[in-house]
Structure formats: C-alpha cells, structure tokens
C-alpha cells in the first residue's frame, strides 16, 4: 500500500518535472523565436525610414519642379501674350479686324447732269479706275486701312468693273461710293493728281467728289483670307 502510494507520487512528480521543464523551454524557445522577428522588424523600420526619407526628397524635388514648371508656364503665358499681340497686329494688317482712327472719307458720285454729250457718256460716271486711283492716292497719303462702301481692301482685293458696275471684293457696289481711309493725310491726298483731276471733272461733268477729315471706321474683311497656292519664301532666300 505504502509502496504503491510512493510510486504514484513518484509518477506524478515525473510528470510535474517534465511539464515544468517543457514549459520553461517553450518560453525560452518563444523568446528566441521572437528575436529574429525583432531584428527583422528593426531592419524593416530602418528600411521604411530610408524610404520615407527618399520620398521626402522626391517630394522636395517635385515641389521645385512644380515651381520651375509654373515659372515656365508664366513665361509661356508671356510668350502667348506676345504671340497674341503679334496675331492682333497681323490681323490688323491682313484686314480681319475692324479698325477705327483719324482719317479721310472720300465720297464719289456720278454726275447728276443729264448725259447731254452722246459721244462720251462715260465721262459722267465714276469708273473702277477712278476708285483705283483714289485708293492708290489715299495709300500714298499714308492710309493704313481702306474700305470702299464698307468693303475692306486687303492684299487680294480687286477693284474692277463688271459691265457698268464697280466690283470690289467680288461684291458689286451701288453709287455713291464712299471710301474710308484711316491714317490718310488730307494735305498729302489733296496734292495727288487724281484729286486735281477730280477738281476739274467736278466742274466739267458734275461728278461728285467730297473729301472730309474725320474719325473713320473701317470694317473687317469678310471674305476668305486663306492663301492656298502662294507660299512664303524663306526670309533669307529671296531671289
């Protein structure tokens, strides 16, 4: 009985010792297992820190890039403004914008005298060549923009006659003819041959011819401005 009891007690103690040591070892193993993980985490933290530093650097770089790009954009805006101004100037020259300024208004009208002279009925009428000469004289007098009966004269504008009708920009005109010319000097215009001639014709045939200095408006050209065949010759390569 006593012996059995001792054996049971001993058996229990064997289990007890076994358990204690196992538990202790497990704890130690767990701590050991945690160690490389700890090192791993430390290296991970360091790695992430350097990544964050890199990203900070990238952010700084991008910020300065942005500032530079903004500067560039501002400059570009300046260039655009200049370009827009150039376009404005060119369109003024090309005739695609309406213009206003001091200048001359020349009114030409057919004679209201009865065409008594059968031999030369054309002498009592305003012809396309009259308009051409007046316009040329106006340009000679410093005109910058000219319109005839509200039709703007551009580089490709023809002034011609179709039968008895004067055609400007392929648009037939009805008399009287009003020529607006911005920038034309009245004195210079009065000295031109055509004005002198009209002075005579006014008396001889009763043709209407009036010149008035005032602020005039020249409308924009409404036709097509695109040039399809002509090509600009290189600036350096003029023959």
């Amino acid at each position: 009985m006593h012996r059995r009891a001792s054996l049971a007690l001993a058996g229990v103690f064997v289990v007890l010792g076994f358990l204690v040591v196992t538990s202790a070892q497990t704890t130690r193993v767990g701590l050991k297992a945690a160690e490389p993980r700890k090192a791993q985490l430390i290296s991970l933290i360091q790695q992430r820190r350097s990544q964050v530093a890199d990203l900070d650097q990238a952010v700084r770089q991008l910020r300065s890039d942005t500032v530079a790009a903004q500067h560039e954009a501002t400059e570009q805006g300046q260039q655009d403004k200049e370009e827009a101004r150039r376009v404005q100037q060119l369109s003024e020259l090309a005739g695609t914008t309406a213009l206003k300024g001091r200048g001359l208004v020349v009114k030409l009208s057919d004679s209201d005298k009865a065409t008594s002279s059968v031999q030369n009925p054309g002498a009592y009428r305003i012809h396309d060549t009259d308009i051409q000469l007046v316009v040329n004289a106006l340009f000679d007098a410093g005109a910058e923009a000219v319109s005839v009966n509200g039709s703007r004269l551009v580089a490709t504008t023809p002034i011609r006659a179709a039968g008895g009708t004067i055609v400007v920009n392929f648009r037939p005109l009805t008399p009287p003819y009003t020529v607006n010319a911005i920038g034309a000097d009245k004195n210079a215009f009065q000295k031109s041959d055509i004005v002198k001639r009209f002075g005579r014709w006014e008396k001889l045939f009763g043709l209407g011819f009036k010149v008035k200095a005032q602020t005039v408006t020249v409308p924009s050209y409404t036709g097509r401005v695109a040039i399809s065949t002509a090509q600009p010759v290189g600036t350096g390569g003029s023959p």
Partner: protein
Amino acid sequence: MLALFGLIFGALLAILLRPTVPQDLSRYVAMAVVAAIDSALGGVRAHLERTFNDRVFVIAFVLNAAVAIFLVWIGDQLATGDALATGVVVVFGVRIFQNLAAVRRRVFGG
C-alpha cells in the same frame, strides 16, 4: 525520496527529449504546471497525513490540470482576456501555499 527522484527523472527526460510545444499552447502548459504543482504538494501532504489514496491522487492530478486548462481555454473563448487564467492561478497559488503550510507543519511539527 522516490518522489524527488521522480521529479529529477522527469526534468532530465524533458531536457533530453527537448519536447516543443506550439506557442499557442504554451499558456495551457503553464497552467497545467501550476495545477500539477498544487496536486503534487497535495499528494505529499496527504502522504504525510496518512490519508493518501493513490487513485484519488492520480485522478485529482489529471482532473485539476484538465479543469485549469479548460478554464483558461474558456477564458480565451469568452474574450475575458487573462482574467479567468489569473483566477485559476490565484486559486492554485492559494492552495499551493496551504498545502505547503500543511506539509511544513507535518514535517517540523506544530
């Protein structure tokens, strides 16, 4: 005397075999150890008081450990945290000291 040899033998066995317990289960093993210490001391006490019953002792040993583990497990399942495990440790701790006191009285008289 045989009990002491058993303790050393068990410890040596564990050192030589190097059994490993998964980390998840280590808490339960620790709890079983606490229960086992209590049972062992209870056994020693009963032995000294001459009221030792080997069957009761072995059953008590296994059952104490099993209930301790079960309570800890229940605590984990109920998400009481370490509260139930702490309770088990406290109860077994008190019992360990009680048994130890009884053994002391028996051995040194008093």
